Structure formats: C-alpha cells, structure tokens
C-alpha cells in the first residue's frame, strides 16, 4: 500500500486499473477527460493490459461498453454532463441487458446555459435508468468505490451497471492524499470477471436484448431489474464490510457525521458535503446540536438507513445541488418519501444551492441551521429556498448593465453609419 497525491480523476483511473478492466470505450468531455488520458497513457506504456477505443459519441461509447460486457469482458467507461445525456438511451439499455459495467460520472451542470462546473442534474437524469449509483465525497472514496462498484455490479444477485459519481472540478481536479491499495490485494478483492451466461460464442449461440411483445413480458423483465437493484442494498452492505476488513476503510450506504446525538441535520450528497462537515464543526462549537447525513448510495435508495439516521431529529435540511424545474430539489423529494408516515419523522426543509459550481458558503450553512432551529420552535416546515446572495444578484445586475451599455453603443455606432 502506498500513498499518493491524486486528483479525483486520477483516483478514478487507478480504480479502473486496480480492477483489471479489459475494455475501456471512451469519449472526451470536460471535466472527465483526465481519466481517459491517464488510462490511455498507462495502456500506451504497457502498464495496463486493457484495450481502449475512442468512439465518436457517448451514445456509441455506452453501446460499445454494454455490447462488450454482453460478450463477456470487464468494462470501464467514464463521462460527464452532456455526454451522459447524449448516451442516456443506452444507459437504460445497459441496465436492461443486465451488463455489469462501471461508469464514472464526473458531475457537471447541464446546458442551457452551457457551463463546466458541477451540479447533480446530470447524474440524477440517470436516476431511473437501472444503473446503481455510488456518490463520493473524497478522492480516496472515488478509488475505493470503483473497486466496490465492480463487486456490486458483478454480484450474482445484482448483475447491473453502476455509476461512481464525483463532482467536477471540486473533486475531479483537486489533489488529495490517497492510499493506493496493493494491486494484488485489490485484484483479490475484486476477483476475476465472471461472465456467467452472458456471452457470445460460436459454440453457444445466444440472443440478448430481444424485443418483447406485450406488457406482461415487458413488466416481468422490468420488475426483475428493480428487484435486483433492491437486492443490491444488502449485497452492498456485505461488500462494504469486506472492504473494511481488507483495507480498513468503511463506506456505509449512508455516511453520518456527528449526527447520532444531533437535534438537527444537513442532508447532502457528493463532495459539497465536506463543506457541510466543516459547518457542522463550527456550529457545534457555537452550541448548536447538528450533524451531517450523506447518502452514498442513491440507487438502490437506502431507505431504512436514512430513516434510522434521521429519526428523532427535530428538523432536517436537505441541500440539493440540483433542481427539478417546477418541483424543487430531487433529493428532498426522495428523503420525504422515505420519512413520510414514520414515527419520529423530523420537519423536512428544502434548500437548493451549488448549481453549476456555485459555492455554498459557511454563512449559508449557519443560516440554514438557524432556519431549522426556528422551524423546530414553531413546529412549521419552512418554505423551500433557492440559495442566492445579494452580492450575486448585484454581480448579475452589473453584467446586465454592461451588456446594455455595449448594445446601446453598438446601436449608436450603427445609427451614425446609417445617417
């Protein structure tokens, strides 16, 4: 075992390398590109016995990934944002084919307007695709989760593709110290690829992904995917335990920080949750009893673990780094569905922030905590809030003013030419 300074992207590449993947269909997109560049360099230097092919789109990339998986090899791929959306038709297919591939998604806000920095509307667009989702907060977690993802995907009771998600820029381009598992121990943990009955061979022809006629047949296969995804909950727990035993790092389906005895809690996913962690420490210092609850698994949804983690809290703030237009925060909706009708369910407040890489400041966490305290005192659920500061609005007004001045000057100039 050795310690390296790795970016989130570097950690993802190491995860693929240590999982002994056979095949990597690729397509560049910011902020994911460093992953495939790193893998390409290793393959080019004969440090990694895998084959990489650059497709002409993410749609083709995910098709090739799933088709190769259906032929009987271990497959890794990675994408972001628009790429995920471009390929999403084939994500549904990959899950329907029950191909156990692993894809790292480096979260980035969706167009329009086009942007580069992170939020979770990309990965949440794939929420219902049948891909399982593991969300990471640190570079170490990205590497370890990739190993865990292969075990989970390939488990005989699961056999579904898995996304390992990390935030673009904040994690993908941030160097953190990462313990690199010994390659032999990692290989032992992940195991050899077992294609089971999923393969194409001359001696054993098979038809895969064939059409069905009628809702009964269709429903049968769709229910199978859902039930397999639900089974992945207990399977995940066992794999996380085993990982802990072998490597000494424990990744429960729901991560909690100072929340056991807390009256209040923040609920967040991915690496912005580390900002919440810091806020928890400061709030605790000032005497507010608050903690953090971070679902690592989004699919399957760890309902029971979330109920246990949030039961008895006075009020909970779900801070969503995504926005379902006309509804609100998506994680908020999911948490609400887990808590509805439960004894001891807390008041549940919704905050949306961190879209397109927008920061969530310590001050905002303090305000959210204050809002929770007030809600608890009055026993009223506060209305959902979109985080935005006066300074930001002022910044926008400045940009608009510049745009107007520029346009007026241009029009004045054109007017003087015409006259």
């Amino acid at each position, binding site marked *: 075992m050795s310690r390296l300074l790795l970016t989130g992207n570097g950690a993802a590449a190491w995860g693929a390398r240590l999982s002994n993947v056979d095949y990597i269909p690729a397509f560049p997109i910011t902020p994911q590109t460093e992953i495939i560049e790193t893998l390409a360099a290793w393959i080019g230097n004969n440090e990694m*016995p895998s*084959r990489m092919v650059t497709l002409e789109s993410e749609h083709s990339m995910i098709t090739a990934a799933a*088709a190769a998986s259906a032929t009987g090899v271990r497959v890794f791929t990675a994408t972001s944002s628009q790429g995920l959306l471009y390929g999403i038709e084939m994500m549904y297919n990959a899950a329907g084919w029950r191909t156990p591939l692993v894809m790292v998604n480096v979260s980035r806000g969706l167009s329009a307007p086009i942007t580069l920095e992170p939020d979770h509307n990309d990965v949440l667009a794939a929420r219902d695709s049948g891909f399982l989702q593991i969300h990471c907060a640190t570079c170490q977690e990205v590497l370890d989760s990739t190993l865990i993802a292969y075990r989970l995907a390939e488990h005989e009771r699961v056999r579904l593709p898995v996304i390992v998600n990390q935030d673009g820029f904040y994690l993908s381009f941030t160097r953190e110290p990462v313990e690199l598992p010994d390659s032999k121990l990692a290989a032992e943990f992940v195991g050899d690829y077992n294609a089971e009955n999923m393969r194409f061979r001359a001696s054993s022809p098979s038809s895969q992904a*064939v059409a069905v006629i009628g809702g009964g047949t269709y429903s049968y296969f769709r229910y199978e995917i859902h039930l397999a995804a639900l089974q992945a909950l207990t399977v995940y727990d066992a794999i996380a335990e085993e990982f802990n035993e072998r490597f000494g790092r424990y990744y429960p389906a729901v991560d909690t920080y100072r929340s056991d005895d807390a009256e209040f809690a923040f609920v967040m996913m991915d690496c912005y949750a580390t900002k919440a962690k810091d806020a928890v420490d400061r709030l605790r210092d000032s005497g507010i009893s608050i903690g953090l609850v971070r679902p690592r698994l989004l699919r399957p949804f760890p309902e029971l673990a979330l109920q246990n983690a949030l039961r008895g809290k006075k009020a909970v703030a779900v801070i969503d780094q995504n926005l379902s237009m006309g509804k609100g925060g998506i994680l908020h909706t999911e948490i609400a569905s887990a808590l509805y009708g439960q004894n001891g369910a807390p008041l549940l407040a919704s905050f949306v922030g961190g879209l397109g890489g927008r920061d969530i400041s310590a001050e905002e966490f303090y305000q959210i905590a204050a809002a929770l305290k007030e809600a608890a005192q009055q026993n009223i659920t506060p209305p959902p809030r979109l985080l935005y500061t006066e300074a930001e609005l002022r910044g926008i007004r400045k940009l608009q003013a510049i745009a107007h001045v520029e346009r007026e000057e241009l029009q004045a100039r054109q007017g003087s030419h015409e006259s």
Partner: protein
Amino acid sequence: MTEKFIKRMKDLPSTHLLGTGTPMCAGCGGLQALHEIYDILGENTVFTNAAGCMTLLASYPFTPFRGSWLYTAMASAPAGAQGIRDALDILLEKKRMPPEDDLQVVTLTGDGSAYGMGLSATSGTIDRQLDYLYICYDNEGYGNTGQQFSEATPHAAKTSTSKGARGFPGFKKDLFAIWAANKPAYVATVIGAEPLDLAKKIQKAKAIKGPRLILALAPCPTGWDYDPKYSNDIGKLAVDTGIWPLKEYENGKVIHTKIPRQRAPVEDYLKTQGRFKHLFHPERDAKMIGEIQARVDAYWETIRDENGN
C-alpha cells in the same frame, strides 16, 4: 459450411439456415435477401440490430437465427458491433476463449438507421477500420412505422409523410458513395431477386477483414403498395431498368457486376407500385417520368465514361 467457390446458380447453398415463420410481411424483399445472405454467412455470426422491421425477427423467446443476436438501438448498431468485436479480440488475445468460438460480427439495420440516425456511428466504425459486415435492407422509408419518407426514399415516391401530388420532393442519398469515399474494405449493392450476384458478393465479403457494407434494395409490398407476389419481379425490374445498379467497391475501385445490355424504361418499374401511381393516374406525368429516366440515364453515362467506353 461449404466454402466452395460460387459461380453458378447450382452452387448456391441448398440448406437454408434462417428459420421460417417470422413476423415479417408477406413478400418482404428484405427477408428474401437476408435468407440468401444468412445461407452463406452461416451460424457462426452475431448480429447487432437497430430499431426497424427486422427487430421483430427475434421476439422473446423465439428467434429464426441459429447464431447470436443483440438488439441495440436505432442510432448505434455499428457501435454494438464495435463492442462485440473488441471483446472477442480481447478474449482471444488473453486466451480466455478458444479460436473456434470466434464469430463474424454483423450489423443488420434498415435504411432509416443506415442512411440517417446511425450514420455517425457507422462513419466511426469505418474510421476505426472495424472488422464487421454491415447489412442494410433498404426499403426506402421508415417501413416499420408505416412508410414515412427516409433519407433513402426516391424522388417522387408517395409515402405516408409525402402524400402531396408530387410525392417526395427530395432525392435518394447515395450511401454506397459515402462508404466508398472513406475507403472501407468492401461495399456492394445486392438484391434478393439476383441471388447469384448476391451470393458471390457475400462469399467475397465474408473472406475480407475490415468494414464492409452490403446494401440490399428491399422491395416492400406494404410500403411500396403492390401485391406481395410481385416482390421478385419488381426486384428484377429495379436492376433491369438500371434504377438499382449492382456494383461493388474494392481496393479503391467501383465495378458494376451486372450492366443491363438494354435497359428497360424506368416506367416499367414505376408503374408496378402504388407509391408511383400518381405518375400514371389520372394522367401520365411524362415530365416527371422523363426526369427520373434522365437521372438513371445520366448515371449509366458516367459508368460508361469510367469504363472508358
């Protein structure tokens, strides 16, 4: 599998490999071509399929294929071929599969995918020199959804989205030329009604490595509006009128494999199909028929020039 060199009709395989009783329409020209192709390709094949009529060939739990099959999506059947070919190569390389388990990777799509939605994925496979055989059954429209016009629909044909007095205003895209321009291993046009020409080309294509296209015109009784019993006759007419030139591209050269000595007038072909009925009823549209004839004539003029005659 017989590997005898096919020269005459009697050399064609007498054992037919594709199962019967499929959900294709009676008289499907695409299925006719596929039967003939499959007899020669054989069962050591894996097909990747795009959304289209033939998607229904393999409907759970039935298949007419003796070999393997993977349905992908309308835009990406060639990318499915890429994934399978790469995976088979990896398994061979790493000795995780015996060489005799290897498969010929085949993509099977209609014209909607081959000429349109799947063209980007197709282009990528040619760039990467993927070793696969692409079969397009071209029935000149989105047949499975009720024959709306596609990029392969011929000028003036009526389709369910070109019902106006003049039919389809656009022109059939030259997919053969698009492939050939990118220097693939092999490209050929075929038609089920010319089984010997088809068999020779499939036998040749089977032995070549790299990206290969077999473009089969697929007379379509439901889409083109004619009695299914005429599919073969209409196929022959497509060749005899010069509307569907039988040709192949290899080593940078295009060779016509059957040059009709005396081309029949195009109206012999047009008048057999309801989609061109407006060219003859209520009165003969001599101008439009003349235009179509002129374009066919112009094509064969360029062929004569190429051959230096």
